[in-house]
């Protein structure tokens, strides 16, 4: 098996006296979409922003090739990892094209930036928004623009924090299809890139991710294929609620149904 595109070893993050992440080990391989799941407050956002911004890592390392992202300069890190943050408000009246062009400044030498911007706009399906000021976008459009900007950064690794939580049905699918495309055919690298994405909706996670990482109280409690990770017992333990799993007849993916306490007894 080839070396992982991104590898995390023994990552610990303290916030004051509290340890938010305890010794996380994680590999992202070329061509994979990894879903990060877990209850609120389990450390998903902390882990993703550490990957994307190197923020406040207490111990451990995050390697991308031969670069340690915890100590690398921001400019170097930005060539390896692009980030789509949870909060999507876009500032002032920059146009969509101008925002995506800011990403392309990292992604390519001056001559190729135009091409990169056009490709990112096309892929993220926001070419028709190119000249619109960011303040006149809907929440879903904002998210697509953020993704286009991250794609224009032309990095092997794409980190997305809850990209689907504010989106309607169609946009959710569009965004996760984009993650798939990035992993399969990313940028200019043979074999594609890798994506790590946090998702609350376990059905979507099961359907679009190759592997899932289940986080609970700052520790990884399970990794594997969706079918391996999403077992009723484990989910009941981590989420503290009764759960039934089945197969979605349309997609064949694992489907998770949370049961209210009154139903849990009957199942």
């Amino acid at each position, binding site marked *: 098996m080839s070396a992982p595109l991104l590898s995390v070893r023994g990552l610990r993050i303290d916030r004051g006296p509290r340890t938010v992440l305890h010794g996380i080990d994680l590999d992202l391989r070329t061509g994979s979409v990894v879903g990060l799941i877990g209850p609120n407050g389990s450390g998903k956002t902390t882990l993703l922003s550490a990957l*994307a911004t190197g923020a406040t890592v207490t111990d451990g390392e995050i390697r991308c090739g031969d670069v340690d992202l915890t100590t690398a300069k921001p400019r170097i890190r930005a060539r390896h990892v692009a980030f789509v943050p949870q*909060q999507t408000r876009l500032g002032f009246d920059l146009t969509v094209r101008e925002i995506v062009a*800011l990403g392309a400044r990292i992604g390519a030498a001056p001559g190729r930036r135009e091409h990169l911007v056009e490709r990112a706009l096309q892929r993220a399906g926001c070419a*028709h928004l190119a*000249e619109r000021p960011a303040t006149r976008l809907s929440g879903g459009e904002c998210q697509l623009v953020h993704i286009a900007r991250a794609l224009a950064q032309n990095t092997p690794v794409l980190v997305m924090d809850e990209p689907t939580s504010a989106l309607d049905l169609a946009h959710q699918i569009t965004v996760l299809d984009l993650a798939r495309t990035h992993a399969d055919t990313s940028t200019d690298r043979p074999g594609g890139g890798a994506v790590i994405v946090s998702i609350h909706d376990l059905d979507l996670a099961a359907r679009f991710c190759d592997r899932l990482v289940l986080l609970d109280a700052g520790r990884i409690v399970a990794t594997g294929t969706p079918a391996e990770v999403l077992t009723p017992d484990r989910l009941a333990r981590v989420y503290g609620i009764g759960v039934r799993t089945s197969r979605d*007849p*349309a997609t064949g993916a694992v489907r998770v149904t949370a049961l209210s306490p009154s139903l849990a007894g009957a199942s």
Partner: protein
Amino acid sequence: MSPTTVTADPPRTTPTETPAPPGRLTPALVLGAPALILLVVAIAAISLGPVTVPWGQVLQTFTDSDAPYGALVRDVRTPRVLVAALVGAALAVTGAVLQAVFRNPLADPGITGVASGAAVGAVTVLVTGVSILGAATLPVGAFAGAAVTTLVLLAVARLRQDTSPVTFVLVGITLGSFCSALTAALTANAPEDSAVRSVMFWINGDLTARTWSDVALCTAPILLGVAVLLSRHHVLDVLLLGEQTATSMGVDVRRQQLVLLLTCALVTGAAVAVSGVIAFVGLVVPHAVRLLIGPRHVLLLPASVCTGAAFLILADLGARLLFDPVVLQTGTVAALVGSPLFGYLVLRRSGAQGGLA
């Protein structure tokens, strides 16, 4: 019970046509027009006054030392117009930068507390009547006040290991209130009534009787600071996307914010030292320019420099010429024109899209 499965194909839709954005002007026009306006306004301001000097002779005085009105143009009007231009440019460009750093369209050069610090220095000189440095005592005192405030800001940032804009604003507001209290105490205890009037003039911003020594005092820090700010235009664009995104896009956000805020403090301090406190230029000019040419700083900053300079030269010209014999100060005219203009811009924008940013 078997699950009911219903499928449906989406209706065919055509992508909606998006109207083109409100016309952005071409770069050549964006930078050329304000520069040209600034030049015309500057020459007009030197030419106009109680004694009107014809335009041709304005230019002549700079080449011919015996030209008529030579002393008036060279020693009185030109330094005054230069100070107005430098101060206007300084306030406008720092306003534009602070609005991006704080991602808040209401930020202005007063927000760091540096202007209030300069006021303490200046008021101390006015009230005590010290004049060890002659005419330069007042601006040097003001600059010292600005410098001390800037150092306090920096010290707080270093000690707390925290240079987030929120901390900066809170420390800035605290410093500002503290300095205002000092100013009030100094003024209330002034031994002579005439000093109180001078304080009032200075606090409202006035450019009467500026000389070449004022120009000499503020030119270097303002030009240097503006050059630093202009060189960071790309960083400012990225900061508009939010701190976390900017960090992920390769910007060392904390470090850049510190450089930008301290440079703004330096430039503001130099401007306030020679002009007193002039409000609204730093708020209104970047706003108006942004509405016309968009928020990209590569154009916004130089256009704000030219527009701010031209605006303050005009405000000063208004202070000199209008309403004679009523006395109006430069800062007063700037606020009289600036506040309704700002109100108009805010209402127009919030009407159009329900928010400022």
